[in-house]
């Protein structure tokens, strides 16, 4: 089914009287989703072999996803989301809608607080003290943390740019690379790394 056909099928289910309309996705290429956008809310629907893959967005951020098997479920969930139902009501009505604790926190405006807790709870032994000290610092604790293959701090929960990235190079030893990635800007134990981050960012 082509993207225009998918939009047509979903719009037929919506009915002529509906306030809402699906349209082909922004890329408008084969396989692109049908997208319903209303005010700050949008829903993208992809047709795959296993059914309909949905993603639910608000102000440019994906807040939930799900798989549905029927057009009526897709349209019902889309309309409820576009009406501003919120994640919890949406998933109660359509249990195939899934979201993470952090996505719910974004909706509730408490992403930073929740993310710090998640990062603290998930930190490996090697990163734990660094993350703990950063979280307790008045300045660093106001930044937005992420922890994966590195510990990063961003200005806020909506920033994609890391202000600082710290790597665990060996037990109790951290490095920060120069912006060109060639060589270290700083290296040391947890205490001096925290001091360095403060001198660099505060």
């Amino acid at each position: 089914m082509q993207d225009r056909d998918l939009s047509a099928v979903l719009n037929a289910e919506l009915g002529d009287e509906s306030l809402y309309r699906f349209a082909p996705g922004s890329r408008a290429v084969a396989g692109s989703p049908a997208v319903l956008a209303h005010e700050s809310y949008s829903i993208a629907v992809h047709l795959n072999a296993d059914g309909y893959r949905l993603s639910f967005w608000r102000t440019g951020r994906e807040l939930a996803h799900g798989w549905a098997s029927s057009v009526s479920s897709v349209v019902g969930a889309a309309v409820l989301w576009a009406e501003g139902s919120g994640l919890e009501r949406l998933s109660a009505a359509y249990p195939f809608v899934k979201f993470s604790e952090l996505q719910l926190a974004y909706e509730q405006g408490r992403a930073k607080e929740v993310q710090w807790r998640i990062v603290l709870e998930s930190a490996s032994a090697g990163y734990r003290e660094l993350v703990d000290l950063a979280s307790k610092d008045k300045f660093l604790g106001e930044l937005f943390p992420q922890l994966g293959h590195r510990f990063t701090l961003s200005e806020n929960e909506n920033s994609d740019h890391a202000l600082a990235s710290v790597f665990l190079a060996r037990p109790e030893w951290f490095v920060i690379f120069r912006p060109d990635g060639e060589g270290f800007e700083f290296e040391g134990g947890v205490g001096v790394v925290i001091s360095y981050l403060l001198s660099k960012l505060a």
Partner: protein
Amino acid sequence: MTFNGDPYAYFQGGDAVPQWTKEVRSAIDNPGVNLAVDLGGLPSEEGWTAMDVFQASAERGKVGWQNGPGTDWGMRQIQISSFDDPGLAGRIDWYMNGADVNSEMTGSLLPPGVG
């Protein structure tokens, strides 16, 4: 494609390269390894397909693992390897938040307009 934990984080062997990057390269380069990649959580936009998400991630990955998220660097490594290994795409299973999106990943993994 996930090599988490402190031993994978350490810069092993005397060079300034974390072990997880070597593990990723080794898995991609080994034709006997089947890869599973979950694109969920990567930056995206409403109208994008899974292929769009992969291509954008690989593009961001050009800055290297030192200056960007490790997942983006990993997607870039897959893209680079697909230049010389046409069978690479066939041994990757693609997921989005745990759901199969292989049907959205048909076609070349090379950058748009290349190959």
